[in-house]
C-alpha cells in the first residue's frame, strides 16, 4: 500500500510548518532517504528525506502552505499502485479537498481516519505519532502481527529528528539578466534571515551604546590557562579563544544585572532564569545562532568545548532545532575580520545583542601618559522597550569589568 509522507516535527514547539519547496516533482520516482521536500520554521529551513521508495503522488500541500504537524502531504506509491487505486480503496478520504487550504483541524481528522487506518497501531501509538510528527508507516511495530505500540513510537521520536537530513548547501541556479548581472533565487535560509531581521529592525526600537575594553589582562590569562590545560589523549583538553571569554563575561554580566536579562512581550516582561547566550556563526549562505545554555554556570573550558562542537555542527547544518531556538541574549563577533566596531540587529525574542570588534593595539592614556594597550570596542544593541539606556550602560559596565579583570570570571 502507499506510504504516507507527513510533515514532521523538527522544532520543539512547532504546531505547523511551512512547506517551502518540493524537491521532487509529482509523479517522479524517488528512493527512500532521498531529499523530498523542504520545510521552514522560524529559524531555519530543513530538508526532509523520503520515507520510502516509489513514485511521488497525490501531493496535497503546495509550496508556501502552512501545514499542521503530522498531516499527510503526499503518498509514495509502489510499482503498480496508482493514486486512483488508493483513492478508490478509501472513499472516505476527500483527497481533492485536502489539497485545498481547508481548516487544519478538519484536514488532520480526515488524514488520520483514512490514510493510517490500514496500519496496525494502538490508539495511544497513533496519538503519539501525530503529536511527535512520526509517520506511522515508518515505525516498525513490536506488538502482535507487527502492531505499532506506544513504545515503538516513543523510541523513534526520542531519536534526534531522524527525518531531517543534513540539508545541502544552496544549489541555486543563477539566471543572467542585462549587463552581465545574474539573478540568484533566494534559498530558504536567506528568506528566513530577511524576514526575521526586517521584522526586528522595523518593530524593535533599537538603542546603541559602546564601550572600549582593555584586553591585556585577558590575553595574559588566556595564555596562562591554555598553557596549563591538562593533556588528554595527547591533546590539550581545551583551547580558549577570546570569544569564549567574551561569552562567559557577557553571561556573568547578565547574571549580575538580571533586569537586563529579559524579553519584551506585549503582556508582560519575561525575566529569564539563566543567561542563554546565542552566538552567531557564519555558515555558507548565511548564519545561524546556536545557544550556550546557562552560560553563567559553565566553566570557560566547558563553554569553549561546547562552542567548538556547536560551530562545527552549524557549518554542516547538523544542529538540532532546540540548539538554536530561544535564548536570552546574543553575541556577534566580527573581530576576526578586523572590524573595529559595528552595531548588530537584535534577534527576537532577545532584548539585547552584543557586537564585538577586534582587539587592536591602541594608544591609551594612563596616569597622564600615553601607553600602548590592546583594546576591543563592543557595542550593545538593546530593545528599548525592555532595556533602557541606563540599564544597558550598567550591564555593559559590568561586562567591561569582567573583561578587564578576567580573573574574577574564574571564581
Amino acid at each position: 500500500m502507499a506510504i504516507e509522507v507527513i510533515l514532521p516535527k523538527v522544532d520543539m514547539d512547532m504546531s505547523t510548518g511551512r512547506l517551502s519547496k518540493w524537491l521532487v516533482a509529482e509523479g517522479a520516482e524517488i528512493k527512500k532517504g532521498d531529499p523530498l521536500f523542504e520545510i521552514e520554521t522560524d529559524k531555519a529551513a530543513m530538508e526532509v528525506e523520503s520515507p520510502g521508495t516509489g513514485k511521488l503522488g497525490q501531493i496535497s500541500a503546495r509550496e508556501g502552505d502552512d501545514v499542521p504537524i503530522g498531516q499527510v502531504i503526499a503518498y509514495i506509491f509502489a510499482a503498480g499502485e496508482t493514486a486512483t487505486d488508493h483513492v478508490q480503496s478509501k472513499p472516505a478520504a476527500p483527497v481533492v479537498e485536502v489539497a485545498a487550504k481547508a481548516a487544519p483541524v478538519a484536514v488532520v481528522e480526515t488524514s488520520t481516519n483514512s490514510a493510517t487506518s490500514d496500519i496496525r497501531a494502538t490508539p495511544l501509538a497513533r496519538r503519539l505519532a501525530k503529536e511527535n510528527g512520526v509517520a506511522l508507516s515508518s515505525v516498525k511495530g513490536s506488538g502482535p502481527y507487527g502492531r505499532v505500540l506506544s513504545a515503538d513510537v516513543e523510541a523513534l521520536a526520542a531519536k534526534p529528528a531522524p527525518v531531517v537530513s543534513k540539508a545541502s548547501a544552496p544549489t541555486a541556479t543563477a539566471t543572467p539578466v542585462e549587463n552581465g548581472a545574474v539573478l540568484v533565487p533566494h534559498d530558504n535560509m536567506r528568506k528566513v534571515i530577511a524576514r526575521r531581521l526586517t521584522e526586528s529592525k522595523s518593530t524593535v526600537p533599537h538603542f546603541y551604546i559602546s564601550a572600549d575594553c582593555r584586553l591585556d589582562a585577558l590575553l595574559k590569562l588566556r595564555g596562562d590557562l591554555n598553557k596549563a590545560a591538562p593533556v588528554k589523549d595527547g591533546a590539550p583538553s581545551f583551547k580558549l579563544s577570546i570569544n569564549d571569554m567574551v561569552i562567559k563575561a557577557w553571561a556573568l554580566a547578565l547574571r549580575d544585572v538580571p533586569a537586563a536579562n529579559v524579553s519584551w512581550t506585549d503582556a508582560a516582561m519575561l525575566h529569564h532564569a539563566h543567561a542563554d547566550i546565542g552566538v552567531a556563526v557564519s555558515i555558507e549562505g548565511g548564519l545561524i545562532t546556536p545557544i550556550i545554555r546557562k552560560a553563567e554556570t559553565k566553566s570557560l573550558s566547558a563553554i569553549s568545548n561546547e562552542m567548538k562542537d556547536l560551530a562545527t555542527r552549524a557549518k554542516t547544518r547538523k544542529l538540532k532545532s532546540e540548539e538554536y531556538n530561544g535564548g536570552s541574549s546574543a553575541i556577534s563577533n566580527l573581530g576576526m575580520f578586523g572590524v573595529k566596531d559595528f552595531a548588530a540587529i537584535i534577534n527576537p525574542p532577545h532584548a539585547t545583542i552584543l557586537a564585538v570588534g577586534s582587539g587592536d593595539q591602541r594608544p591609551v592614556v594612563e596616569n597622564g601618559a600615553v601607553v600602548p594597550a590592546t583594546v576591543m570596542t563592543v557595542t550593545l544593541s538593546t530593545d528599548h522597550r525592555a532595556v533602557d539606556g541606563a540599564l544597558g550602560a550598567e550591564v555593559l559596565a559590568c561586562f567591561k569589568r569582567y573583561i578587564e579583570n578576567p580573573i574574577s570570571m574564574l571564581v
Partner: protein
Amino acid sequence: MADNNFDVLIIGAGPGGYVTAIRAAQLGFKVAIIEREHLGGICLNWGCIPTKALLRSAEIYHYMKQAENYGLSAKDITFDAAKVVARSRGVSGRLNMGVNGLLKKNKVQIIWGEAKVTKPGEVVVAETKKTVVQPQAPIPKGTLGAGSYTAKHIVIATGARPRVLPGLEPDGKLVWTYFEAMVPPKMPKSLLVVGSGAIGIEFASFYNAMGVDVTVVEIMDQVMPVEDTEISKIAQKQLEKYGIKFRLSTKVVKLDRKAETVTATLEAAGKSETITVDRVISAAGVVANVENLGLEALGVKMEKGCIVNDGYGRTNIAGIYAIGDVAGPPMLAHKAEHEGVICIEKIKGLDAHPMRRDQIPGCTYCHPQVASVGLTEAKARAAGFELKIGKFPFLANGKAIALGEDQGLIKTIFDAKTGRLIGAHMVGAEVTELIQGFVLAMGLETTEEELMHTVFPHPTLSEMMQESVLDAYGRVIHM
C-alpha cells in the same frame, strides 16, 4: 516399560503448571506434569476457588439477613458451618476432577511424586514425602510414579506456601494458615487475622459475615497495602461498618497459646497490649517453593527467595524454566498461567511477548470487593507522571442503587501528557468482574478518547467506569 522421555516436563500442577502443560500439548510437544499432592494446586484446592465458595455462602447469608431492605422476609436465618465447608470442598473437588479431565484430553502424562532436577534435561521423581493436606482429592488413575525422566525443557511451577513468622508458627489447632481456615470444624467466637493482604482480608470478611468477632492486625499503615490508599480507606470503613476491627501499624510480638484460646501481644508505636481470641489466622504472605528441587546444585539464579527468569520464563540455566509464584511476585494464579503460556510459546519459537507485569490486575473478594490494575496514585506521582484523575462513586449509579449496593468508588488515573491509562482502582460490589475492562484498555493502549467513545450498556455498574474516565477530563455527567 513406560516411556520416560518427554519434550517438556512440568513440575507442579497448579494453575501455572497445568495451563502450561495444556498449551504445550496444543503446540505438539510430548508433555508430562509432575504433582505430589493436588491437581490444580493451591489456587483450586486451598486458595482462590474454595474461598470464593465460602465467601458466596457468607454473601447469601448477609443478604438473607438484609431481606427486609428488599421487601422480603426471612425468619430464623442460621447456617450449618459443616455444610458451608462441605460445599466449598465440593466446588474444589469438581474442579480438581476437571483439571484431570483436561490433562487427559490433551494427552498430558501425569507423574505422581516429588521431583528433583538432577541435571539439565533430567528429573528424578520420588514418592511424596510431604504430609499431604487433607482432605485430598483422589489421586488420578494412569499416572506414572517414582523414576527417572528426561526432557529437553523442564518448567518449574512449584508455587508458594504460607509464610511463617517467628512466634506465629501455625499449629493447626489454635493458629491457622489458610489450610485450616478453609475447613473450620466449627466457627470460633473470636478471631485474630495477622496480615491484611488479599488472603487475610478475605478470611476476615468471611468469618465476620458468619458472626465471628474479627480483629485484623496489619504492620503497614493501610489495609491491603498494595492497593491505592483512597480505595483501601473506603474498603476499611465499610468493613468496619460490618464490625471488623483493624489495628494498623501494629505488630504481633507474641502469642500465648492456652487450651482453647490464644493471647496475642500487640505492639504499636512503642505501646503494647494484649488481646485474647479463640483462633489466629496467620496470613502474612507466601514464600516460593524453591527447596529440594536441586536448584542450588545446578546454580539456578535466585533473588529474594524466588527463581529469576527473563520475562519469557527462562532461567540462567539452559533448558530450565520457572513460571508462576516460584518465579516471583505478583504471586497470583492469572500471572502464573500467562507466564506459563509465554514460556512455552517462546520455547516453540512463536512470536511471544514478554510478561507485562505492570498490567496484571489484582482482585480481593471481601465485601465490598476491591480490584485494581496499574499504578496507584501515590506510585504514579512518585514515578513523575503529571496526572489526570477521575472518580465516580457507586452512590450516583442507578444499577448500584437498585442492587442496594451504593457504597464504592471507581478511580482512574491517566498520564495527562499522553492520555495513557496508567492505573484503575475500584472498591464496591462486583468490581472484580469490572476490572478486566480497564485491563483490556491498558493492554490495547487505548487513550481516554476511546474509553469515552465506547458505548457502555445501561443500566450497569460498568457505566461508572466510563463516568470515572469522563471525570478525569472534567466531563462527568451524573455528578
